[in-house]
């Protein structure tokens, strides 16, 4: 062996290409005369948009929103029972606070965003009792954080979240001595969220089952799943919703009536499940054969292989597409306005037609568009965070 050693090659910094702001402008915006023309044209379009927006903001009259705030939020939910909705929000806020302490990451962002919403709302012109409620929410957020921080009860938290759905539903609907509030009276954002959350929570497991069933070795199950998926994907959502309004009562025994909101929830679930199934199928097919072979080789049976090895990987791979489906479900809840249900969009069109506020449609629709946008972009942001968190050790 030779003893002399070659010196290691020197590590150099990459060459500097920055030449200041003017250089950047020249290089990116005005490199050729055609590029320059495009830049100026684009600037003009931006100017038109901004000035139009400025015009709208300075002349807008938001009284139509403040006067209809209760309708937009809860619809025809009886005024003397609104405290139940408020309690539900406090429960939710408490759980977000606890999740912040226990899960960190995404839950922390959610908690901070929620806290910011309550804080800004408290500054806006609300009544004293509403301010008390907003501050109660901030207190619940803090209390949830404290409870989560000191107990760190992970398992309890998961169960609490699962239990919160039925508890909130019962509270809204009425249980025990509370007067019943039929879901046909729910409206506004409350109805929109109820439709979306129930639709998501029910269509996800149904869609996964359908996707797995489509891969089944039993021909009857496979044929049923394929038939269901193809049939539902072949018709527009609005027809599914109408069919559920008309046909669901026919399938149920006589004497049992189902509220129209529940029929709409079933319709959304049936529709979205078919799309989720196709997304999940793509995920299942992307898992290499070697994964299930390795699982079978160590002695796992078919069900455990699916549950522990295949589905976790397939679902993680399909988070973005699945959240995309949930976002479209959330926005499509506005179709129930056509069925005569007064969700956020239904209330908005009713408010826009009030004689007191003629010519103020723009304010109403901008307001609800902002609400839809906030929820949809929060879901989208959440999915990206979740994807990154679960992507640990991805090959």
């Amino acid at each position, binding site marked *: 062996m030779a003893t002399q050693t070659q010196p290691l090659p020197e590590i150099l910094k990459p060459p500097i290409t920055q030449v200041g702001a003017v250089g950047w402008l020249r290089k990116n915006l005005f490199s050729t005369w055609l590029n320059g023309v495009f830049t100026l044209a684009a600037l003009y379009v931006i100017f038109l948009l901004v000035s139009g927006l400025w015009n709208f903001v300075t002349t807008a009259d938001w009284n139509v929103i403040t006067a209809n705030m209760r309708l937009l939020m809860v619809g025809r939910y009886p005024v003397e029972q609104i405290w139940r909705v408020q309690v539900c929000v406090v429960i939710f806020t408490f759980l977000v606070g606890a999740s912040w302490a226990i899960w960190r990451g995404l839950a922390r962002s959610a908690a901070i965003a929620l806290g910011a919403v309550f804080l800004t709302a408290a500054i806006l012109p609300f009544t004293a009792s509403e301010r008390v409620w907003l501050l109660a929410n901030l207190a619940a957020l803090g209390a949830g954080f404290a409870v989560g921080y000191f107990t760190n009860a992970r398992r309890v938290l998961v169960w609490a979240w699962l239990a919160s759905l039925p508890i909130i539903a019962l509270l809204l609907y009425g249980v025990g001595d509370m007067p019943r509030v039929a879901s046909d009276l729910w409206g506004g954002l409350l109805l929109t969220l109820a439709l979306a959350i129930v639709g998501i929570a029910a269509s996800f497991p149904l869609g996964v089952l359908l996707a797995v069933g489509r891969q089944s070795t039993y021909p009857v199950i496979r044929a049923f799943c394929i038939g269901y998926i193809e049939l539902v994907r072949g018709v527009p959502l609005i027809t599914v919703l109408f069919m559920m309004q008309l046909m669901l009562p026919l399938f149920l025994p006589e004497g049992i009536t189902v509220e129209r909101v529940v029929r709409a929830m079933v319709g959304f679930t049936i529709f979205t499940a078919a799309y989720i199934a196709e997304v999940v199928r793509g995920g299942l097919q992307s898992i*290499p054969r*070697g*994964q299930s*072979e*390795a*699982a*079978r*080789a*160590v*002695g*796992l*049976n078919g069900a*455990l292989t699916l549950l*522990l*090895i295949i589905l*976790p*990987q397939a679902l*993680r791979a399909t988070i973005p597409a699945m959240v995309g489906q949930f976002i479209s479900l959330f926005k499509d809840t506005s179709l129930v306005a056509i069925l005569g249900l007064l969700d956020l969009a239904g209330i908005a069109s009713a408010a826009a037609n009030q004689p007191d506020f003629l010519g103020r449609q723009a304010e109403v629709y901008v307001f609800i568009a902002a609400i839809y946008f906030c929820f949809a972009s929060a879901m989208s942001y959440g999915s990206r965070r979740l994807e990154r968190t679960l992507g*640990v*050790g*991805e*090959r």
Partner: protein
Amino acid sequence: MSESTADIIIARDVHKWYDQFHALRGVSLNIKRGEVVVVFGPSGSGKSTFIRTINRLEEHQRGQIIVDGIELTNDIRNIEKIRQEVGMVFQQFNLFPHLTVLQNITLAPMWVRKWSRAQAEEKARELLKRVGISEQANKFPGQLSGGQQQRVAIARALAMEPKIMLFDEPTSALDPEMIKEVLDAMTDLAESGMTMIVVTHEMGFARSVAHRLVFFDTGSIVEQGTPHEIFHQPQEDRTKKFLSQILH
């Protein structure tokens, strides 16, 4: 009686078809407890297919396979019982990428053997130490080199305390500098008395570790014998020709 209870694997006249293609054409092979058998042959000769029939990753359509006294039939309970006794290591490692190294190893003992987490983790750490990668326990497979991944795969198979280990070209997907670390782990295992069937072209390993070499071609066994017999006095022309091609 030619088949004593010492034979842990008995294959009699095993046939396998892929559609029209006759992949296994009457393979008969008995393997004794503690025996290390190296199976080699050209690609497409059916050697991988044959060892995959032993834990029923491939189904045979004719003949009989008896593993540790249990015959492989369509009865799912028999198949699952045999899979718990037979560990397998794959060419492509096939580790579970969403689980840590430790979880990869403890998964089957906990879910199939119903061990407690503490017991399974103790076993896993012992095995990781044995294959020389204790410090990687909490990493994910994607963070390991190929050689390390394959050693984790060996530990994962061993965690079920199998009586037989199958290796399907365990070093073929590895970079050259990582082959030795995997072969060392396999040699160590062979010396501990494990029954092993190894499909490989690592003839150095075959010469020093195997008790018996089996040469496959066109779906059947052409020739078998001790390493000395195969390397120095091969009887069949096909064996001679193949050996001359791989032993430059």
